[in-house]
């Protein structure tokens, strides 16, 4: 089983997704930002500024390496070259945590640069677990698996998402990354109860929480359709769901994700401080 104390060295405070334009602010006055997350795929070059900045940041902050392209839910085998690049990065950086997504993004040679959904069946469960075993073995470290934002459902699914993720954690020993915004987005899109989702979630296995902004749209029948855009502030109902999660599961390393229309550092820092205020009473 994933051991939070041993397998995850992220502090139980707020962090942000790293953007190069915030480098100087992070070095000089990070404020409430206590750790950073990077997208692994942006640091797979041979040298230059990206790796030099990352090295300098890693001297000051715990770093979480977050993969977005491994395609753990893919029908085909994991790409051995990509896995080798991830291993190279993790060996070089020795990050405080490594995480990836319950999603797929490649088919054959085509990389679709998105986190695509999976049906929740016994067959996909077996495949995802085999891929996670392979990742954890290759990297010689346990990983966290993140719940997705989804926009549609599969007729062939035979179990709900929380059951599916809980079973993965049980079978592979991986931890879970709970994206509370994704819960809110998926729950709205799928007409689930988000609080019931959190209450059923195996919070003891959660090594990290994500918070981000989403966009609001509607489908052709007028039903709400939320889109996980990471392009704005976290909305109040997501903060409320986050507070419920922390009250129930205790303080967890919490990341503010803002990948599009990236604001100036003080805006991100204020979001981190807001998360910290919710974490404060739960610190032990």
């Amino acid at each position, binding site marked *: 089983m994933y051991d939070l104390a041993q397998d995850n060295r992220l502090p139980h405070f707020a962090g942000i997704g790293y953007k190069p334009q915030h480098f100087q602010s992070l070095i000089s006055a990070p404020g409430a930002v206590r750790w950073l997350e990077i997208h692994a*795929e*942006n640091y*797979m*070059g*041979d*040298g*230059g*500024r*990206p790796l*030099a900045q990352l090295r300098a940041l890693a001297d000051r902050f715990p770093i979480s390496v977050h993969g*977005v*392209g*491994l395609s753990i839910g*893919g*029908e085909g085998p994991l*790409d051995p070259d*990509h896995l080798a*690049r991830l291993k190279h990065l993790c060996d070089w950086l020795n990050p405080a945590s490594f995480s990836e997504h319950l999603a*797929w*993004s*490649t*088919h*054959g*040679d*085509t*990389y*679709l*640069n*998105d986190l*695509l959904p999976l*049906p929740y069946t016994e067959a996909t469960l077996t495949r995802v677990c085999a891929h996670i075993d392979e990742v954890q073995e290759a990297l010689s470290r346990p990983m966290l698996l993140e719940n997705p934002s989804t*926009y*549609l*459902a*599969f*007729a*062939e699914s035979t179990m709900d998402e929380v059951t599916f993720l809980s079973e993965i954690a049980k079978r592979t020993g991986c931890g879970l990354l709970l994206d509370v915004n994704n819960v809110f987005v998926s729950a709205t*899109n*799928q*007409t689930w109860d988000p609080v019931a989702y959190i209450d059923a979630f195996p919070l003891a296995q959660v090594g990290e929480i994500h918070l981000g902004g989403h966009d609001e749209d509607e*489908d*052709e*029948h007028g*039903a709400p*359709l939320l*889109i996980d855009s990471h392009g704005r502030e976290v909305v109040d109902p997501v903060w409320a769901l986050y507070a419920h999660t922390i009250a129930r599961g205790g303080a967890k390393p919490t990341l503010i994700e803002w990948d599009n229309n990236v604001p100036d550092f003080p805006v991100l820092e204020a979001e981190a401080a807001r998360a910290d205020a919710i974490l404060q009473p739960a610190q032990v």
Partner: protein
Amino acid sequence: MQQSDFTAAILDPNAPVPPGLLDPEGRPAGKRFNVYRNNLAASLTDALETGFPVLARLLGADSFKTLSLIFSRAHPPTSRALSQYGAAMPAFLEGFEPLAAYPYLADIARLELAIRRSYHAADADPLNAAGMDPATLMEQTPVLAPATQIVASPYPIHGIWRRNTQPDAPKPQPVAETVMITRPEFDPIPHLLPAGGATFAGALDGRTTIALALERSIEATPGIDLAPLLTLFLTSGALTFQKGPDQ
């Protein structure tokens, strides 16, 4: 549902949504599936705009977006590291009829790809000629640094690049230009390579001396001025030494 069906439908905006994808009422997913199509198209357009800023400026935002959509459907990425996405753009532009009147665009795309390769290339200690006497310098056998990239064109690609990245840059003249990109620290710098420069660079293989490489340049381009050529290579961080297997 097979992921091949899902993939094909994402890449073709006119394809029907694969069966078995539903909304919460059990109706076909319809517009919900388009979220995935839109995510892919928008992310690839953004990646191309970031990767080809001068090309985007030359074409204008709307035309570049149209080009990006057509290109990304024909050439979706094959690697998860998007830093080199668009490697097929130069050849694509050469065969793209609507832009046939602007044949220099393909070489601008080549230049911008080379700038990106330079940005992500391995770090290297530059050859430091300071304090080296000329005879010793001439006997050195350097190689191009990993970040050094050379792009030759029958069009004034350096002039076009400058005109679109620097205020008050002069109007490009209709001449063939070769660009050498070097990266003294972290920022790639495109230099106009003087005549004979490409021959000089091509001769440096880690066994050939600087003296011999200069000789080859003169043979290939008689009458060239060697001094500015050598100065550019020695002051721009273009050169380094090959590392032995035990270093």
